[in-house]
């Protein structure tokens, strides 16, 4: 009977997040792939059974994603106001 | 072989639970936030139904009865008694308030899932069957092929008198 253990899924999530996050060109697709990379990191930490570390790192990872998106929206609004967008 | 039958029964029970409660609490009627509206319009452009699209977008953008069912079964499995489901209802309510949602669907789903799991332990279905079953149910709604699932949800919503409200 075939058996897939859990850290293999975390490894595939992290590889998908890294390759996709580096090779996409639009910033919002890169941010979505970074969310997948953070999921892989948290599940790998949870496989080590460091649960408090998983709690704190989930908080920090997603707060960092939200901060990047606030900066992205502000930057695009400034570019729109200067007329440089496309 | 016995576990596969238990997982199938758990998947069917949790699918019925979260779909009925989400439609009854009015998720296909209107998008709560603007991201849900964008996801619904995208599913409609790919050949689906608008009500089902709003349903899928609302599930993505805030923890509704699907998250209530999953976290209640997790709490029941970890605590070993029904009080885990009550704690899950509390956390789901706080998460709903953070995500700009009134929070009726999540807490109702968590409490009804707690009662359902407590009743199902007498016929030999454990809470971990419900965890895997909830994941399979979310996969059938969100992950296989969006137009078919959104048409199914739209048909059920029209039968339960929860149509899309047009302004």
């Amino acid at each position, binding site marked *: 009977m075939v058996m897939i253990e859990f850290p293999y899924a975390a490894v595939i999530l992290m*590889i998908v997040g890294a390759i996709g*996050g580096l090779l996409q060109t639009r910033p919002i697709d*890169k941010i979505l792939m*970074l969310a997948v990379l953070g999921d892989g*990191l948290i599940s790998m930490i949870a496989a080590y059974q460091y649960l408090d570390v998983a709690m704190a790192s989930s908080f*920090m990872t997603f707060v960092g994603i939200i901060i990047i998106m*606030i900066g992205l929206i502000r930057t695009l609004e400034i570019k729109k106001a200067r007329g440089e967008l496309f | 072989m016995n576990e596969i039958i238990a997982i199938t029964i758990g998947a069917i029970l949790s699918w019925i639970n979260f779909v009925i409660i989400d439609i009854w609490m009015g998720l296909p009627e209107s998008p709560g936030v603007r991201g849900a509206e964008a996801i619904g319009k995208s599913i409609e452009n790919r050949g689906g139904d608008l009500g089902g699209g709003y349903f899928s977008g609302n599930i993505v953008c805030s923890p509704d009865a699907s998250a209530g069912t999953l976290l209640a079964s997790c709490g029941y499995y970890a605590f070993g008694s029904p009080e885990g489901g009550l704690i899950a209802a509390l956390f789901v309510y706080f998460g709903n308030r953070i995500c700009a949602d009134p929070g009726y669907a999540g807490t109702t789903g968590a409490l009804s899932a707690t009662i359902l799991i407590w009743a199902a332990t007498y016929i030999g279905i454990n809470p971990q069957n419900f965890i895997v079953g909830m994941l399979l149910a979310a996969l059938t709604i969100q992950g296989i092929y969006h137009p078919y699932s959104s048409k199914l949800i739209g048909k059920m919503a029209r039968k339960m008198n929860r149509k899309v409200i047009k302004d």
Partner: protein
Amino acid sequence: MISPTETLPWISFYLGIALLVIGSLGVVFGPKASKEPIIRLINLTVPITGIALIFISYNYTLTMLTILSVNTMFYIITIRAIIRLEEMEALY
């Protein structure tokens, strides 16, 4: 079949090194990274995750939490700097 629960530090260590190398190359030579600085900032998350994986393979949990929190503070400061540069039109 090798069980990953016994060889979990090895998998974590080599995956961390691979992410570090790939991420460093991507920060320098990535597509459109030299035009917009926010894409370079987003690419920088990949080697940070690789460093966190290497630290977790040696059971250095407090070090990993420190580097993640310093990463978040670095985001705040750099995002403010990028917005100021965009406003001053001193970027190009």
